[in-house]
């Protein structure tokens, strides 16, 4: 057996170099065949999802925008322990801790809280490790279908507490449904 007849994959094909006959060399038949194929695609269902109006169906285990939780009394859970920042593989999370002052007991659950809590959305990979690392059930990834909005400055992608903390109305609704 000579080398060029061996086919290791079993998919080897001989290239045909035969000369085209007259009908092939005026290309018309081949072009007609091609036209028939493309015209079929004219009537096929289009696969495009028109994004802002239509939203792609997400998987049931989808992880969306982060949220900093409040408890049933509307107090922030986060104690600025920094476990999420340590767990984050993309190093997207930073925070500054602060001590709770007397009279702020209705705002923060424990004596320590995060005065600044920022996630860089350009770095975040939505892996959900912060959620797993959190000992206080403070941060979790919602099923929100809202994708990070485009912006023209890098600073605009750093989400602070104004965007991350659960809105009060939602906390009120939650505690109402609990009682």
């Amino acid at each position: 057996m000579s080398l060029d007849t061996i086919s290791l994959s079993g998919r080897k094909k001989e290239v045909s170099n035969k000369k085209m006959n007259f009908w092939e060399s005026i290309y018309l038949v081949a072009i007609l065949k091609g036209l028939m194929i493309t015209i079929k695609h004219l009537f096929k269902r289009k696969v495009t999802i028109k994004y802002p109006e239509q939203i792609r169906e997400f998987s049931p285990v989808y992880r969306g925008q982060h949220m900093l939780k409040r408890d049933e009394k509307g107090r922030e859970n986060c104690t600025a322990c920094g476990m999420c920042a340590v767990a984050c593989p993309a190093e997207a999370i930073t925070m500054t801790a602060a001590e709770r002052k007397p009279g702020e007991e209705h705002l923060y659950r424990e004596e320590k809280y995060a005065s600044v809590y920022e996630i860089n959305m350009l770095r975040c990979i939505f892996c959900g490790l912060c959620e797993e690392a959190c000992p206080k059930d403070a941060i979790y990834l919602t099923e929100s279908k809202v994708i990070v909005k485009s912006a023209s400055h890098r600073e605009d992608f750093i989400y602070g507490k104004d965007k991350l903390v659960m809105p009060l109305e939602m906390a009120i609704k939650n505690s109402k449904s609990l009682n």
Partner: protein
Amino acid sequence: MDSALIIEKGIFIVVIFAITMLMAMYSTLAERKIAAWLQDRIGPNRAGKGGILQPLADGLKLFAKEEFMPDTPNKFLFILGPAISMTMALLTSAVLPWGDKLEIAGHTVILQATDIDVAMLYVFAVLSVGVYGIMIGGWASNNKYSLMAALRASSQLISYEVAMGLSIVALIMMSGTMSLREIAAQQEGMNWNVFYQPLGFIIFLVCSFAETNRTPFDLAECEAELIGGHHTEYSSMKMGFYLFGEYAAMFISSAILAILYFGAYNYPGMSWVAENWGANMANILGIVVLFIKICFFIFFYMWVRWTIPRFRYDQLMNLGWKMLIPLAIANIVLTGVIIIIADKYL
């Protein structure tokens, strides 16, 4: 010539100009839409409902672009290029019959800007000058890619013009006239020339693709090798004129195809409509039918463009000189023989 006729023709020419512009504008949208549909996409759909305002947005964008002029010694020729390209695309429409005639308030309006005896020759003359638009533009750009494109375009157009002319000779032998008006009138009912000249039609169709620089013969602007081809150095509305001229040429070329081979404004049952609903109604329907045929050919141009890749340069030349020209000559001989036989025995 009385002033009423001049006004009538003036209005008619303006209307034809407006329609050609409108068709060219919407051809750009149709091109993108059909490309998208053939590739299972949706296409532009943001400007207006279903993208209906997209051509306006494109035009506005081109107007707002920076007008860049390369450092070329031929500033005049640089501007002349797109101007010729556009003018020649529009000039052909002067001799095309867009319908038979209309009776408006006892006055007969012939739906044609001018009916000259040698309309066919006029069409060919104008088409041949059209290549100067690309040649001059490519030459004046002072860019080697543009020059290459100009070379390719001119050699391609000259080669295919021969086959195109020969395929028309057979048609002229058959119809015995060069006036487009008479050729249109001869194809009454379903008496379309395509049934008598199928080979001539195919040759003419292939050559039309080459003459309008459409795929598979768009070697003059093949992006992979020549950047933008002859309009590499053009920007803003000068570039727009080239692109627009190309679509206008496609519209006119579709009109020529429909008029020469597909029965112009004739449709089966035209005489029945004329008897029952009046001659005007029949002729208005005729205009509509002509535009349907034109739209079909425009669609066909695009359909082919999004189906097959472009030819290699040697394939292009082989097809033109070794295939189409002999076929066209054989067609002439065949037509001549059949005409003689038909004269003697029928």
